[in-house]
């Protein structure tokens, strides 16, 4: 194993640069180091102006998503040694399809707005008092939405989604999966409200099932599956309201 590895990191300063460019750094190659460790090494020892987000370093806070050799990755869980044998610099870029604020930091407001737009909270008509205890939910009922509740909002799925890249009005994988997380929750009664948002062209219908969102998801949420399943639900609902208009709310 060589003792150092080269990184090509995208640098962009809105105050200085018209266009971004790649800067090359050589960093020590330790067996336990992930890409994020290399970036921190650069920031601490070489160039304090290198800019990126990170926090927990254990794959749960969702801050450190970047493109590593063209693939969306959590850099805290991407080992440098995996790239050592390729003998060419590891390319680190900001998440694709998002506007770049600076270096490896992208703009997140659009994503946050989309999360909010699908009403990701428990909607219930009755509102039982706390004193009456919990809403019952069997392990099987929990299992129905569990997978969709695992999203850490790292946005790798958006960076993998060409539909979002081509037309950012698309609500996108994570937000739709989150809506499904609540739709499938046995305690929730808000599916109808959410359908107004999801069943638009910008919602599920924009998705062409490229399927990459599911492949890059570090938490195995399967947003592509969520969207396809919801297409079926929305279609059935639509036919129901067409055939039985009196039954629709």
């Amino acid at each position, binding site marked *: 194993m060589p003792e150092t590895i080269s990184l090509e990191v995208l640098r962009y300063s809105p105050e200085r640069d018209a266009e971004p460019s790649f800067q090359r750094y050589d960093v020590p190659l330790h067996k*336990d180091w992930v890409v994020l460790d290399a970036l921190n090494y650069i920031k601490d020892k070489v160039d304090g102006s290198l800019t990126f987000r990170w*926090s927990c*370093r254990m794959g749960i806070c969702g801050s450190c998503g970047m493109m590593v050799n063209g693939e969306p990755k959590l850099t805290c869980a991407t080992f440098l040694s995996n790239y050592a044998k390729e003998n060419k610099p590891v390319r680190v870029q900001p998440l694709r399809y998002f506007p770049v604020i600076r*270096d490896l930091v992208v703009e997140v407001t659009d994503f946050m707005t989309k999360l909010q737009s699908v009403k990701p*909270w428990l909607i219930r008509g009755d509102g039982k008092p706390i004193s009456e205890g919990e809403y019952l939910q069997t*392990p099987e009922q929990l299992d129905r939405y569990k997978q969709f509740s*695992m999203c850490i909002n790292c946005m790798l799925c958006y960076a993998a989604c060409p539909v979002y890249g081509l037309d950012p009005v698309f609500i996108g994988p994570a937000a739709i999966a989150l809506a499904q997380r609540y739709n499938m929750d046995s305690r929730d009664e808000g599916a109808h409200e959410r359908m107004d948002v999801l069943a638009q062209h910008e919602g599920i219908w924009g998705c062409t099932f490229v399927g990459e969102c599911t492949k890059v998801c570090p938490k195995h949420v399967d947003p592509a599956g969520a969207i396809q399943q919801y297409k079926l639900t929305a279609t059935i609902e639509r036919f129901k309201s067409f055939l039985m208009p009196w039954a629709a709310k």
Partner: protein
Amino acid sequence: MDISYHDVLLVGGGGAGLRAAIAAAETNPNLSVAVVSKVYPMRSHTVSAEGGAAGVIKPGDTLDDHAYDTISGGDWLCDQDAVEIFVKEAPEELLRLEHWGCPWSRDPDGRIAVRAFGGMKKMRTWFADDKTGFHLLHTLFQTTLKYNAVTRYDEWFVTRLLVDEGRVQGVVALQLMSGRIQAITAKSVILCTGGCGRVFPFTTNASIKTGDGMALAFQAGTPLKDMEFVQYHPTGLPFTGILITEAARAEGGHLINKNGYRYLQDYNLGTPTPQPVLRNMELGPRDRLSQAFVKEVEKGHTTDTPYGPVVHLDLRHLGEKVINTRLPFVRELCLKYENIDPIKELIPVRPVIHYMMGGVHTDNNGATPLAGLYAAGEVACVSINGANRLGSNSLPELLVFGARAGRAAALAAMEQRTPSEHAISQAQDEKARLEEQFLRKTAGRERVATIRSEMHQAMESGAGIYRNQTSLENAADKLRELRERFRDIGLDDHSLTFNTELLAALELSFMLDVGSAIVESALHRTESRGAHQRTDFAGRDDQNFLAHTLIFRNPDGRIRLEKAPVVITRWPPAERVYGVKPDVKEVAAR
């Protein structure tokens, strides 16, 4: 300068901050509530909590049992009135989370499931697999999205509190994206910035946990309480410091030394049993387990690795099914970060800085001695954790006291009051200071990373699991030196756009303050209690130290220490007894 006006301002968007925001908004929907957070709320470190949240819900368990476990776990330094409030309100808060959609793990009949946890005599820890903090934080965050009264300042960093006329009037904050520095005023300010694990080199804490709120309060003259009590979690992965949850031991994992021996039996923690027994062996409290590790190192019974000595956590006998269904995150972390499969292999672990028992001095409603200033969560010290926090008490703590602080702050904010001229002018001064000290200065010679790493070393060698007068004084001297050198700090980055180096420098400055508060408080307490173990003062000294340590910073910068009484209601100080004899077993039933 731009000024925004709110009624209640949350500094920090983690579990406590979001819970407080919702409580404030519900107390009075007409109030303008704002959350200022240096990261997007769902990135907050609450997300990393794994094992669970304690709350009495099952038949056979009582509030008094929970209170007793908490108080004895805290080595009688807990305020017992606060603990009584805490254990009573914890189940209500956890149920509220359930009503907001938190995916708590369930029993087959659909009721909330509970698991065993360290230091707890009964099974009362609610959990969502081993990602409890993650689910709790995301549920809270998603629930706040429905409150339109809550304004968020995401990725804004608070650099100081605005204090005038004896009360807090708001904060000065820096917007990372634009570099804008402005005053955000409010009638009540609640600090919910979490702990300060990053003062130490080896910690489970995320990079954002730099003690910001503690330092902000300290600088404003508010006392910090019990700062000498820093919790080591006995099972962190070497190098990364990633936490392997206590739930791994609650499910039946064993800690073994290099001879394959369950060494905890040598440290007055009971005797090995085939099934996990509550308050016994691996389910003893964290302070005692971490201290046992140091003794094992001294005996030469640990295994050496490039990242220091380790012992091993053995989960293999639990089998694939238990590991995959109850501890999936443990397995994921081991596979991803250590290339180890706990189903087949031993997990190397060592104690790692995990939690700050001490914090901003507050009363049972989160109010600090400074009017208008509140604190809740890890940043605060109520104190329910005393000298050692029990696992799974921190999540309910941030809910209970987050909600209380939110309500109290909202009630206080209903009075009419406008920020004073002088407070606003402080914001101008702060802006000028930041520009002069960091952004425009080009001559500085010290690097942030150098000072930070020297601080880490000073803290680890001076104020680790075992301390003494010499080690602490050396650390104190070193921190004073670093504080001096910090004045000569120089940044590579003078940009206004997302200047993370400026952020790191401001955080370092906060950490230097918090670090000295820890060291000075530890020097002051000449006894050993809970997580504070002095080799030169072995044993608990209730005569002199059944008291909280309060540390103040005077306006002239000098430090002052005081003692404050511990509230004892129904549980007079006694010896902490852990472990059972083999004949009186209380088997943790599954």
